[in-house]
């Protein structure tokens, strides 16, 4: 970022030299550090539980639909690119391009959440629930037939829904805050090449959520 831009987003109060990053951006990075610990606790519990589990884990793709989730992953990656394009656009001073790319990002995120909700409904219908496998469901029959390991299905359900659920919650928060910025700031054209703090900050959050999904997709769906 250029010095002049950085200065515009600095508080007007003279201060001892800090991190040379404006407050909102620094605050977002600090918040993300705490988010790393939050997801670290959830993912760490999953790793510890799976590592110590008595039996095998269900094979990838048997319970979860990898294809639709792979598409969802792709969607989230695309929305990350559109977010960064929005950021580049306003940095260069094109508010109309910003509006376009931001809208794309919002749509991408909304689709991701929609598909995840669809996936959840589908899974629950098949009998995959946070407590494991629902009695008398399609999956319960598979467990009985031995094509799914009975010993670890409870942990599978617990960890899957907790991790992806909280990720989905974060995506939803991201979509809502981008929508808020889109309506209150981007549409009225309040962002300029000198002041686009909101876009950069929400972008950082959005990329972080994408980053978490990249890890989750690999360790939950593919391993």
């Amino acid at each position, binding site marked *: 970022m250029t010095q002049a831009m950085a200065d515009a987003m600095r508080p007007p109060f003279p201060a*001892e030299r800090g991190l040379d990053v404006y407050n909102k951006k620094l605050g977002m990075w600090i918040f993300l550090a705490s988010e790393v610990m939050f997801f*670290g606790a959830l993912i760490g519990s999953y790793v510890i539980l799976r590592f110590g589990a008595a*039996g095998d884990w269900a094979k990838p793709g048997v319970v979860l639909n990898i294809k639709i989730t792979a598409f969802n992953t792709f969607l989230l990656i695309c929305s990350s690119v559109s977010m960064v394009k929005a950021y580049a656009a306003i940095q260069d001073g094109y508010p109309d391009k910003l509006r376009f790319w931001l809208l794309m990002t919002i749509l991408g995120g909304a689709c991701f959440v929609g598909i995840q909700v669809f996936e959840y409904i589908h899974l629950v219908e098949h009998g995959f629930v946070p407590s494991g496998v629902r009695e008398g469901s399609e999956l319960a029959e598979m467990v009985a037939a031995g094509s799914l390991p009975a010993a670890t299905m409870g942990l599978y359900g*617990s960890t899957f829904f907790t991790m992806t659920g909280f990720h989905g919650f974060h995506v939803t928060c991201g979509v809502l805050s981008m929508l808020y910025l889109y309506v209150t700031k981007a549409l009225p054209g309040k962002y300029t090449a000198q002041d686009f703090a909101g876009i950069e900050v929400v972008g950082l959050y959005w990329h972080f959520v994408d980053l978490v999904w990249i890890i989750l997709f690999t360790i939950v769906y593919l391993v």
Partner: protein
Amino acid sequence: MTTVAAASHTAHAHHDDRSFIKKYIFSTDHKIIGIQFLFLSLFFLLVGGFLAMQIRWQLGFPGKPMPGGSLLPETMAPGGVILPEYYIQLVTMHGTFMVFFAIMLLLVGVYANFLIPLKIGAHDMAFPRINMASFWSAFAAGGVMLASMYVPEGAARAGWTMYAPLSAREDLSGAALGQQLWSVSIILFGLSSVLGSLNYITTVINNRAPGMTWFRMPLSIWALFITAILGLLAVPVLAGAAIMLLFEQVLGTHFFDPAAGGQVLLWQHLFWFFGHPEVYILILPAMGIASDLIANGSRKPIFGYHSMVFAICGIAFLGWIVWGHHMFVSGMNPTLGSSFMVSTLLIAVPSAIKVFNWMGTMWRGNLRFHVPMLHGVGFVAMFTIGGLSGIFMAATPVDMFIHDTYFIVAHIHYVLFGGSLFAIFGAIVYWFPKMFGRMMNEGWGKVHFWLTMLFYNMTFFPMHNLGMAGHMRRLYDPNIYDFLKPLQPLNTFISISAFLLFGSQIIFFVNFWWSMFKGKKAPLNPWEDNGLEWTLPSPAPHGNWETPPTVYRGPYEFSVPGMSEDYLPQTKKLPTDREPAMTPAHGH
């Protein structure tokens, strides 16, 4: 709530055009938020104290009807006699309220909020609205926790550490809604804590006044800054664990359920991974505040400022790799036990550095025993006992004997009451003028200090002996055991001392409220201190400074040779001082 209503009387001197609600209830001013936190946390301190008195009644006079106990419902204490299930709720809620809602809010909520902008010379926090959200989510968390005591089956009853599976299964604990509300409250509390922490960290990094370099910051600010980092990174782990616990209770997940492959020790690892940094969250700010009080009272620069800073950082760093010492006898891998023992013992080093530096500060000083100084010295004396008794628990073989006995109860109270709470009392008296524009009564403050010191030691010191005799924690009636029967007189003695200790807090309580309305009007700088906050009127106005202060030196320049006064404010420019190389101001 009384807390907010009372805030309204505090500052009528500065009339600005904000409405009453904006000014005192949904305020974004860090000082008002700090005062809100003060009322909230003092309220919970009182609640926690009441619970402790009930615990002590049962232990001192087991099975006897408690005075006023007939007011409690049949499900808690029929005829005033405490029931076992109510007793473990008392134990659980006393720990929860005191750790999360009293001490942590008093230090991190009140003093981080109130002091950071004032002491580094900022207008306000970096994110005032997030700051307000932090208070209101703490308020909600406290409300939920308080409400959980009034649901039909009563409050959570698995101890403040909430060990699963007892906490996770209602058929084993006997409480469903109470346990769930505990989890919900802790999740809200985690949110509040993260919002607060990110605010404190950003403010300290970016919003220091010109000349306020890192090594000119008061130790209280250093401690609060490091504490905020600990809170930022540790509390999300607790929130994650509490979420898993809530899902276990509500959705029937299996994280901690061995029958379905879950792991019981996972909860303990998560809880103590948060819990040990939490212990330092509860003591580091008290150490920082005590440093400020002792330097001021000794009229001497703090001894070894840099090593004090490094000791704070060292404690914070070691705090991440010692959590296993809470789990030596939990069935944890014994090799981990060995490594956790070594890292735990090493914490004695920075703690010793701090104690000796406080003594070094007093050495050849000119000690003024105002009430805050008394509390500062009391802090050092009592924290030393708490720190030393920790070494017994750190040594694994000895811990095997005294783990989960009253020895650990004595230890934690020496650190949290003798340490943190003494520093907090000192801090309240010390910054009372900046908060409310009046001084607290000096004489009654001294009476309160000495009575507290006396009864506090009478209450908690004998607990070491209880623990050495093998008295387990959280026993409803120790007389079940033959070998504990001879300890009953000691337990009764402790209980009577505890009642007297609680009684002497009334003095503080009355002094606090009386001084708020009738106390002596406070001058600008009643303690003749160097800090930036003392250049402001008492109480400090909204927005703090019209023009930012410029800082020329560290905060502990007392008794500088050649000066007529024995203090030298940070903002006073001497002919030899150079202007700081500050970053220029930028307009919009």
